């Protein structure tokens, strides 16, 4: 099959590799019909994630048709159409039983690596470094999906791929970020830093949850336009002297009830040397987080869907403490959201395909990475067609 392989910093290659096969009894194999490039894939592309190896297959936003099931798969059948969540969860551990799916104990074969850094390892992820399990990803024509009865959600209508594909990551991720804001319908004001795909879904999710006002902060014109189209007020941080003053002006001086950092930091800190190596970059990239910490109102909520995994410096923790701010964050507990968000889509409450700006064949993925990374051609979201 064809697959998008990481070959080093800013080097992606479409290679012909072996087809995946069943390796464990609860696996299935999916023939992929649609797959996407995530903003977090750019951290891999830019070479900031340790434990990548040349030849690793990327991609964690994919869907398709089940073509083979392992002997212990009970619910899925060959021919089922499924969207696959990006986190791999076993369904049987302490955390899965508490709906903390992204904290699953049992799916990362390399848990000891992550444990050494973070104390404990969470769930494995598709195509996201050996630290997170080293599972081959879904920017390919086929993928092996472990725990097939736990993760994938069956799509039983003929709704187009593009409307349900983003159940794989960015819609639930934006939705959980909004849900974490403890929105009081008709009252809450939510500020969102970053208008990439996750920010876009956070904006729309906050409004779906009843936010009185959503204020989006970015400096990319086409992303701000998309945020406005989604119902947000916007601040271009390049065009104002002080974002905090603007936020205060827009909130009667009180500040937003909740702040969402949908930017994250470019560098995933990990092994100590790599952290040291990347700290210079982090000073810039943690800027959104620091600003959100200062901007959120007293007693408010800071919600962080943006990816952080290492050390960051100059965090104004005194501001967070002094204001009694609650911080909620983490990888998305995907499995909680698949069914309710599919219902929202099928009820016509949201059409996630709004975010797509580019549709290209899988074979053109390397160029698409470059376009996305450089924000060329007003690129916000790329969908790849494995059959083209």
């Amino acid at each position: 099959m064809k697959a998008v392989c990481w070959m080093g910093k800013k080097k992606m290659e479409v290679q012909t590799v072996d087809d995946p096969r069943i390796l464990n009894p609860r696996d299935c194999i999916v023939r992929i019909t649609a797959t996407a490039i995530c903003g977090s894939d750019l951290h891999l592309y830019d070479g900031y994630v340790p434990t990548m190896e040349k030849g690793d297959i990327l991609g964690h936003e994919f869907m398709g048709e089940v073509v083979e099931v392992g002997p212990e798969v009970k619910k899925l059948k060959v021919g089922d159409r499924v969207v696959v969540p990006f986190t791999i969860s076993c369904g049987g551990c302490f955390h899965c039983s508490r709906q903390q799916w992204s904290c699953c104990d049992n799916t990362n074969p390399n848990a000891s690596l992550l444990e050494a850094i973070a104390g404990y390892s969470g769930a494995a992820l598709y195509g996201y470094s050996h630290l997170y399990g080293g599972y081959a990803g879904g920017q390919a024509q086929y993928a092996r999906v472990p725990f097939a009865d736990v993760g994938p959600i069956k799509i039983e209508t003929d709704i187009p791929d593009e409307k349900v594909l983003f159940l794989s990551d960015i819609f639930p991720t934006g939705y959980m970020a909004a849900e974490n804001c403890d929105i009081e319908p008709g009252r809450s004001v939510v500020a969102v830093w970053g208008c990439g795909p996750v920010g876009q879904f956070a904006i729309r999710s906050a409004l779906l949850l009843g936010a009185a006002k959503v204020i989006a902060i970015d400096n990319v014109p086409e992303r701000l336009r998309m945020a406005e189209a989604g119902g947000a007020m916007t601040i271009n941080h390049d065009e104002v002297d002080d974002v905090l003053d603007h936020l205060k002006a827009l909130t009667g001086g009180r500040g937003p009830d909740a702040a969402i950092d949908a930017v994250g930091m470019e560098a995933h800190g990990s092994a100590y040397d790599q952290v040291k190596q990347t700290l210079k970059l982090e000073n810039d990239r943690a800027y959104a987080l620091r600003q959100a910490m200062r901007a959120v109102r007293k007693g408010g909520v800071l919600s962080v869907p943006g990816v952080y995994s290492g050390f960051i410096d100059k965090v104004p923790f005194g501001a967070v403490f002094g204001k009694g701010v609650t911080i909620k964050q983490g990888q998305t507990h995907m499995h909680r959201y698949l069914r309710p968000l599919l219902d929202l889509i099928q009820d016509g409450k949201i059409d996630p395909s709004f975010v797509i700006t580019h549709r290209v064949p899988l074979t053109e993925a390397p160029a698409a990475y470059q376009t996305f990374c450089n924000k060329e051609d007003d690129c916000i979201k790329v969908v790849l067609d494995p059959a083209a």
Partner: protein
Amino acid sequence: MPTPPPSHPVPASKSAAARSGDGATAVSARKRVAPSRAVVRGDQGIKITRAVTIRRPAELLYAFWRDLENLARVIKHPVTITRTSDLASHWSVSAPGGGRVEWDAVIINENPGRLLAWRSREDAEVPNAGTVRFDPAPGDEGTEVTVNLEYNPPAGKLGALFAKLTGDEAGQQVAETLRRLKALMEAGEIPTTEGQPVGKPQSKRQNA
């Protein structure tokens, strides 16, 4: 129910004796419960404690462990475990460079569903001893499995080989064993990516 401390001798179970079909085995095991000297003296050797909580009943986990040959499924390092009697087993671990470390172990204490203790026979090149305890986790959340292991790395060539084999990673190996046991018991399988597709140059290395 209070848990007996690991050092407290508990008679071998009737069921264990029944399994072996030889009541004398259990009796002889009890004789070994109070050795004339410790396998590893208190002020010597390397001592490791690792624990994991598994959402399964203690009886089930104990039964898996008591069938010692099962442990080869969850110990990541290649190991051959051969049961030589109900209480005795032979262990053979491959070391880097083709060497092997071998020893005979004997169960010296067992309390079904709660505790197992073992030690190497007196002529072992690497004297070692250990216990595994199965305690109910708070809140009816399964079983806390705690392993205590101690061993005395020998001097000389074998010691060097053993150090190379385990190094500072002995604790890590115990932790990994418990992690894999937990996955097998809770998820029904041990997570792996061995055999999945991969691009060049890794695929070339795999095929080489």
